[in-house]
């Protein structure tokens, strides 16, 4: 019962967030950047301004709706990059073993030694702010869990009869990895990926909050909160809605990940992710 509640609530929240992002142009009341009008500055939430307006008179509701695009793009794409890197490294390391395994292990240890948000910050420092930089920074810094899981599965799978049968049949390494190993480790990888998307959304928000994310004035939930901080005494509503949007999106992904884990990865021991 609880299992289904996780999946349903999580899936709904995430689907809703995606829908809002996709349909942003139709859902938004005004243009999130251009429709600034100082006449409407700092209006509290009302029937006209659902979530209120900021100090430049921009409609917060429209900005939150458009902000979904940044958060979800970064969340989904950067986690995909992480998953691909993690699976590629972990799978090949576990399958081939030897020096390559040592290299991958060393690399993973280094990654685990640097807190991922700080690593992302460093990369942003080098690349400068912007959406592409965000995707790269967050896509390169959170693959170690995936890598470890993929490596462990590959290690245990490679001695299974059907994998060895494929070797005997003369299948190439790449083909064996893609057709025999990968499908059998997909469950946990998907679970980690879902949870990782949640943390990528949080990291994007954090970096944008620090002024290292998407360039203003384009709306991102993190940078909106950064603006809101300075006006918390005069316009507290500015802080409410972007934060709520982040919370609901991440909550959806976390619940979805937990629900998927119950289904796909019933033997998972630790819930450490």
């Amino acid at each position, binding site marked *: 019962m609880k299992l289904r509640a996780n999946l349903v609530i999580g899936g709904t929240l995430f689907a809703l967030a995606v829908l809002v992002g996709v349909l942003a142009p139709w859902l938004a009341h005004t243009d999130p950047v251009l429709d600034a009008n100082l006449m409407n500055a700092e209006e509290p939430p009302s029937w006209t301004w659902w979530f209120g307006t900021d100090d430049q008179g921009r409609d917060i509701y429209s900005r939150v709706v458009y902000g979904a695009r940044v958060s979800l793009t970064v969340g989904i794409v950067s986690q995909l990059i992480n998953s691909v890197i993690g699976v590629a490294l972990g799978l090949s390391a576990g399958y081939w073993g030897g020096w390559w395994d040592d290299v991958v292990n060393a690399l993973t240890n280094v990654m685990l030694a640097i807190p991922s*948000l700080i690593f992302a910050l460093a990369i942003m420092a080098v690349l400068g702010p912007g959406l592409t930089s965000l995707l790269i920074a967050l896509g390169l810094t959170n693959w170690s869990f995936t890598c470890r899981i993929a490596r462990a599965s590959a290690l245990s799978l490679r001695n299974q009869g059907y994998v060895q049968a494929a070797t005997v049949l003369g299948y190439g390494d790449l083909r064996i990895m893609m057709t025999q190993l990968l499908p059998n480790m997909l469950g946990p990888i998907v679970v980690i990926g879902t949870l990782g998307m949640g943390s990528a959304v949080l990291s994007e928000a954090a970096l944008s909050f620090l002024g290292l994310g998407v360039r203003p004035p384009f709306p991102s939930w993190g940078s909106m909160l950064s603006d809101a901080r300075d006006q918390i005494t005069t316009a507290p509503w500015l802080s409410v809605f972007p934060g709520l949007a982040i919370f609901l999106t991440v909550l959806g992904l976390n619940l979805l990940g937990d629900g998927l884990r119950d289904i796909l990865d019933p033997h998972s021991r630790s819930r450490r992710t």
Partner: protein
Amino acid sequence: MEAVEGRKKVPMLSFLIRRLLQTIPTVLAVVLLVFVLFSVVPGSIVSSMSDDADPQVELRLKKQLGLDDPVHVRFGAYIAKLATGDFGTSFRTREPVTAMLAKRAWPTLQLIFAAMAFSVVLGVPLGFIAALRPGGLVDSAAMIVAVTGLSIAKFWLGLVIMYVFALKLGWLPSFGYGDGGLKYLLLPALTLGVSPMALFARTTRAAVLEIMTADFVRTARSKGMSETRVVKWHVMRNALVIILTTVGLQFGGLMGQAVVVEKLFSWPGIGSLLVDSVLQRDIPAVQGSILVVVLAFLAINLLVDLLYGVIDPRIRYA
């Protein structure tokens, strides 16, 4: 009689030395990474520092900062300086980075340990209580709190806490370090501690639930112990091993998140130094801050490994 393996204890010291040696390659790799990352910066750092693109000024600046040597020479010099505890000179303030870091180390340590203490003291018992009656009221409530705590953005939570406790209720200062007292520490530490608390509650719950199915717990019950005693005498210490792992790993996460929280509350720690330096492209300060954070994280994990030896006798005899 039956053979008994491993009576002689491997002394703690040699264990420590072995672990230290294992850490060295990681440290070197991180140093290299941090160095390379900032040596491949597209465009000249110097040109981004000064608005007037006078080539002569630029050249002089470069020479002054030692940026015109070949990369490997610079790396060698960098390592040599690091070994003496010299992190270089800040582009921005012309101060030695080591001194800047030293000034800011204490506030960050305060913040991180306060947050860690708060999250452990609250999260671990919460997980225990939840696990004793899985599916019960406390369990459900605890798990809702936990998933909420993990899903909330730290700086948003901080904003809300700041608004309520500082601005509306006026109980505590809204930001700044002040005299470094508890008054100033409370809100940032609370903000930073919420998501580790949630994580510890979840990990503890899962660990306890798993240990409760172990054979030795059945043995304990067969001795005629109450469930409370079973947990106190047999489950707790075993759960501690798993909780400790999570705590050790979580220090890394906390150091990352501290950056955001320090910035939000204008807390003068290494995190805000890092952000300010990144924003102003003060490369030596960025490198220094990152290295210090990584070294601290590795040191803490070393400490955690030593604690394992104390808690779990099996480790000592590895």
